[in-house]
């Protein structure tokens, strides 16, 4: 199974390399990177149905080279990120007021991904320099933009830390260092676990190729996560025609209540 997959991966990578190489050669910019990344996903659509219990996505690919690697080159690193649709949110902190614990302090986060997974082939700080992290927004704290109502709270960083901690606990934020398997600096693969509590939307998948913390090439693609079947129909109706949705909820409840009492009356007699 494992060997077969690897063989297939090699074949796929070679084929991909040929196609993409040809495509890129035509519009070749003057300073094309000597190493390029090509990647594929085991699936590009995820359906959220009533029985959705989470899913795993296999991200695999290969490095395409125009020039052989120099003998003294720094080791190659691969970083894979999968990012869910961004949200605006508030992080609240409880405090004791009159003996009762209640939400008292709020920090508004202008933009935070609903899901964010980072997988690397080497420790993230080695694989990516701080400048490159800032430019490409790769690490989890960089993916969150928390400015806004900073002035109201003295220790705003504690709130973003709490956001990361809570979402990491729910499997929504993941940092898996060393989870990318890199073979002979050419083939790589990793799996990204999608938890059951996903938000629907377009998920951006990125694969970074780095040496000495510098990004050599980026491959980007999307995963379409959407509610399917009755789930989708209900949530779209609830959002777009809330009154009709409410009336439907009432109608169903009336029918269910009436049906239940009738059914059991018939059952008894």
């Amino acid at each position: 199974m494992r060997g077969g997959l690897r063989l297939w991966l090699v074949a796929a990578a070679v084929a991909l390399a040929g196609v993409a190489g040809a495509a890129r050669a035509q519009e070749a910019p003057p300073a094309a990177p000597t190493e390029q990344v090509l990647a594929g996903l085991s699936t590009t659509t995820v359906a959220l149905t009533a029985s959705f219990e989470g899913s795993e996505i296999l991200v695999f690919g290969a490095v395409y080279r125009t020039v052989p690697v120099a003998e003294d080159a720094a080791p190659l690193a691969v970083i894979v990120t999968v990012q869910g649709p961004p949200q605006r949110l508030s992080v609240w902190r409880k405090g004791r007021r009159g003996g009762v614990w209640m939400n008292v302090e709020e920090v508004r986060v202008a933009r935070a991904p609903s899901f964010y997974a980072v997988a690397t082939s080497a420790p993230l700080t080695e694989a990516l320099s701080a400048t490159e992290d800032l430019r490409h927004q790769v690490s989890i704290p960089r993916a969150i933009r928390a400015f806004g109502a900073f002035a109201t709270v003295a220790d705003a960083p504690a709130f973003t830390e709490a956001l990361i901690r809570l979402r990491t606990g729910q499997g929504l934020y993941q940092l898996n260092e060393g989870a990318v398997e890199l073979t002979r600096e050419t083939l790589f693969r990793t799996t990204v676990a999608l938890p059951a509590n996903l938000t629907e939307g377009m998920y951006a998948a990125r694969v970074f190729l780095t040496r000495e913390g510098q990004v050599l090439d980026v491959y980007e693609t999307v995963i379409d996560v959407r509610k399917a079947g009755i789930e989708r129909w209900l949530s779209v109706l609830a959002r777009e025609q809330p009154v009709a949705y409410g009336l439907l909820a009432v109608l169903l409840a009336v029918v269910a209540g009436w049906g239940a009492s009738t059914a059991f009356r018939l059952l008894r007699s």
Partner: protein
Amino acid sequence: MTGRGKAGGGAFLACHGAGRWARLGAETDQPAGAFPLQIYLPIAEVTANVFVLLGIGGVAGLLSGMFGVGGGFLITPLLLFIGIPPAVAVATGVNQVVASSVSGVLAHLKRRNVDLVMGNVMLAGGVLGAVLGIWLFSVLRRMGQTELLVQFSYVGLLGTIGTMMLLESVRALRRSRDPKARPRRLHQHNWVHKLPFKMKFRTSGLYISVVPPLMVGAVAGVLAAIMGVGGGFLMVPAMIYVLGMPTKVVVGTSLYQVIFVAALTTVLHAATTGAVDILLALVLILGGVIGAQLGTRLGVRLNPEQMRILLALLVLAVAGRILLDLVLTPDELYSIVVTGRL
């Protein structure tokens, strides 16, 4: 496949019931089978165990079958305990109340135990109350205090009702052992009879002001909107002791009012908070139907006075649990509220 991120993910949409709320119930891992034990709730955006949800509906149904109370007052707290966001727990709870009231009122209508005139007056009050309650709910929601509002109203109401029921049951138990004690007079002339705008309520045999029934209905409407209950546990005693209605028509009339108030509240919640989860409601209703049938059978066999004490203790236990959540230092001080999608 992954056992992570089950109902603990109440972070979406509304306040995340931090730590202690989320620990009970739906977090158990289960073998991946053909039948979905875990169900993804599209509006709550949380995964929960079907049997836990059926059980919650079933417990409420059991109570309604045994005692004739709606049981809605248990559904919302139990949903909170398993990590359903407070707004969804309230809005979906009130949707479930529609079903249980419809199923209850039919028998009363057949026996002509519904005072429609009184019901409509209380309904008018209920509409006002529901609108007021929805407004209050959205104001506090914007302030990030949905959870606090729900917790406070539950502690206050369940604490009061539970204590009153317990005292009343203990008194009744003593009375039944002491045959010399005089039964209490139900219909008494009180302040209600001094108010203006009097009206004739033929089925109840009353000639009283419309103000008290309007007020009783309005309070029930507010409770429906902020707590997701029908308010029968409050209306029934008020109708007997304050309005002086005959016991025979009280339950049917309150159920009649509750159907329409709960229906209106469901629509208002859907339109304002968008937190009504139809799938969740249907699972709860199904559990409720089964529970109510069991409850009816159990209720016949058991001593009603002792059962009433048990119910009172149950109500107090739920209130105590919520109170503990309010006063004990929470495991998790932080919570996430999603305010918009980009």
